[in-house]
């Protein structure tokens, strides 16, 4: 099982998913993020999926859940770097990832978290 590292910079937690995750790792990430949010008081989460080639319903659900969890801690989550092929597939699957913001890259993701349009 892979443990995805969570990096805290200022008020934001950064997660970059670089490898193919199987279900246990996905669940582990969710738990770790919940822990970090609770203890660090971070106001924002950026999950970078630039390197992710496949987002199926399981991972999609995880991303939405992380969004909900972060809101419980008064933080906002932004998913960045989704690949076009992945976006098209998710749309076909009927997953809109409601409840999480999205952005093209981490920089734009930070702009969203910092309140700029």
């Amino acid at each position: 099982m892979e443990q995805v590292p969570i990096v805290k910079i200022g008020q934001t937690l950064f997660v970059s998913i670089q490898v193919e995750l199987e279900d246990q790792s996905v669940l582990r990430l969710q738990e770790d993020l919940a822990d970090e949010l609770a203890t660090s008081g971070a106001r924002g989460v950026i999950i970078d999926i630039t390197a992710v080639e496949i987002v199926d319903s399981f991972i999609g659900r995880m991303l939405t859940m992380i969004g909900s969890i972060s809101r419980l801690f008064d933080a906002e989550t932004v998913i960045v770097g989704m690949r076009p092929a992945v976006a098209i597939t998710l749309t076909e699957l009927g997953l809109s990832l409601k409840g999480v913001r999205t952005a093209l890259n981490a920089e734009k993701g930070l702009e969203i978290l910092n309140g700029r349009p």
Partner: protein
Amino acid sequence: MEADTTQARMASYLRDHHDKVIGRWSELVVAGLRGRTSAEEVRHELADLYSLIVRVLSGADDHAAGELRAALDELSRARARDGFTPTETALEVFSLKEAVYELVADAADLVPEFLSLSHMIDDLGLRTIEAYSAAREQIISDQALAMLELSTPVVRLWDGIIAVPLVGTLDSARTQLVMEKLLETLVATGADHAVIDITGVPTVDTEVAQHLLKTVSAARLLGAECTISGIRPQVAQTIVSLGIEFGDIATKATLAGALALALQQAGLKVVPVLWSRCRS
């Protein structure tokens, strides 16, 4: 196995009269194709087919039949590409019968052999027609795809604002292409606003609306906001009467209106330039 020996006899007859038959066959084919191919090439192609046919008839090896089918398919595809009709290609095959018949016409004892060859050639000729259709269909679908590509431009209206003017019907194939190009352009330009203009889309029914919604949904996953522009009065009425909901997607009558909205959302404003009276 009477059939086999009949065929084997035909095979050896064909082998014995190789040059004569191929020569006559080539003549007939070149005449049929009315000078649009070189006699050299034709003779070469026919010689290849001939030896494959002989191998199949003699029952010598198992691969011959497959190779013969492949060679015929390739011939059909080539003729289709060069603009020959399926009849012309089929006649090419059928003229082998004529060439052989001219030689055996007087030999009564070769009737069963000839009949067997005739049946085989009939099948081969029909096969070329099927292969031809398949080849034409492939060409048509390739061209359709090319046309689709050409009619789906994505343009940059301003920093961070791109537009996709759609012209023509929006079916699922088109939608796929639009989504791909739109998303790729979003990534390439770093845009965060896309205007999808449907002025050129003749009818907007439930299916088209679903395609539009899918496109917007996909763009949003890349963090872009979308506006649909070019809603003509009739289209607006159709949309409402069909009960189509665009939800939280902004819609505008004109591309200009959509651009203004996008600029506003980007925190930009267009103001007149005041020329200073004093030039120095």
